């Protein structure tokens, strides 16, 4: 039997099941819904090339989303240094309108954390990943996960004054 599906059906099923959570993960990493949507679309394009070759496509997608988010943040830094570039360096103002002041303060503090600390905290407290899963996603050791989590929480406590 021959089919011309080429994995698009499988990809569509993955998309239906996981895209929303991945967009939300990317939002917490880049603080911009539009950019988060682009990142997830790109991640699915990449994973399509690996279907049948990647044993755990969801884990692969999550790692790719984290890596692409990192690239976008790096580009945002460049844009800040070179104001002529078109890269948006702040989220749309209305994206945080629904937040209470205290929630907005937490999100702002989260975004100010060093990149690795922010990634670890988001993966642990929002994605609810285990230490092993976070280590595999970020390509770092379990010890580093603990260190970044500890430092990140300490920085948040200090920033939020609790």
């Amino acid at each position, binding site marked *: *039997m021959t089919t011309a599906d*080429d994995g698009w059906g499988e990809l569509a099923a993955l998309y239906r099941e996981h895209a929303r959570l991945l967009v939300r993960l990317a*939002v917490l990493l880049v603080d911009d819904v539009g950019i988060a949507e682009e990142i997830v679309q790109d991640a699915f394009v990449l994973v399509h090339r690996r279907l049948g070759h990647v044993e755990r496509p969801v884990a692969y997608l999550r790692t*790719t989303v984290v890596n692409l988010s990192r690239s976008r943040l790096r580009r945002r830094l460049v844009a800040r240094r070179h104001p002529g570039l078109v890269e948006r360096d702040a989220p749309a103002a209305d994206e945080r309108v629904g937040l209470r002041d205290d929630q907005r303060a937490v999100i702002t503090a989260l975004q100010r954390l060093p990149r690795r600390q922010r990634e670890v905290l988001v993966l642990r*407290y929002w994605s609810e990943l285990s230490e092993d*899963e976070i280590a595999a996603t970020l390509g770092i050791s379990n010890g580093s996960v603990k260190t970044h989590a500890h430092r990140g929480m300490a920085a948040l406590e200090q920033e939020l004054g609790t």
Partner: protein
Amino acid sequence: MTVERRLRDAMQARVEGVDAPTMSIRPERPRRVWPAVAAGFALIVVVAIVVALLASGHDDDPIPPASTPYPSRIVAVTTDGRVILASSKDGHALRTLASGALAGGGLAVSPDGRTVYYAEIEQAYCPGDPERIPVTRIMSIPVQGGTPEEIATNVRYPTVSPDGRYLAFTGIPNCSDAGQSVLVKDLYAGARSRGPYDGSWGPKVFAGTTLRGVGGLSWAPDSRHVLFTWFDAPGGQYTGVLDTRAPNTTFLDTSPRVKAKVDTTLCCYQGTRDTLVATVIAQDREHTWTADPRSGRLLDHLTCCGTVVSTDRAGAAFLTYWTDPTHPGGIYRWTLADRHRVFLGSLLFTAAWVPEAGAAR
């Protein structure tokens, strides 16, 4: 309220109501700043091509011999499963060779530039396979067109040795007794197999019983060693080198630092005739690592290319898959000489150089 609870609460509130957009992940070209100029230029190119074709008097080989530092033609598998011959100058299709191919199943061209090997979808997936991996068989077809011929079933990722004698490929996991081993077939050894792997059509040179995710096959210039990748969850991907005549396997540097670099890897041999130099591509990090597969030592790295899907014989011209928000997703040409990406087509899923006739080693 603890910081942890405040963090959870704020993150939940931040993403409340955020939903995934409608799936539209087939990449498209971004808008051009000067569409009218571009359209005019395209018209000129089309007219020039038509005039050239008319002047040539036949369409057997519409692209003249290369005067460029890379082969003039590529073969590619499109997103809708067609195997096409295309110009490497601008990616325009010269002819369709076959259909029904698995876009991600691999593609290879013999070193004499005459035969294309690709993975055709045989059935949607093996009965009872929980992972529902598409089952493919490897077919061959002449670059000039003709009838596809079956080479082997339940396999994919074909790769031809530089001397043209051997075809390496992998088994389909959960589907055949070959598992996901690296397999090698002697193309000179008489009749071609038409059944599932049974050992009769070539040595099963590597039984990867403990390996998973085997892929990224690439021959060394000596037509003896095969570079491949595999992974051990949750650690990431490794790169190994198989000696097809021994057979034994050497693994490249598996230190955490290197493993982290190659955790999403394709790989290919690049290069020189006597030294075995492997190029390891860490896709998401856009790095190409060069390593000595005999010692496993990393030699150098190059930031260039996105996902490299094919290198030319000299290791100086790459076909790459690239996508980011500022570039249309698809196949690009990239050479060491000019070091910038030239877009060839968003509908091309994978591609391979077609070596120029008479240029074989």
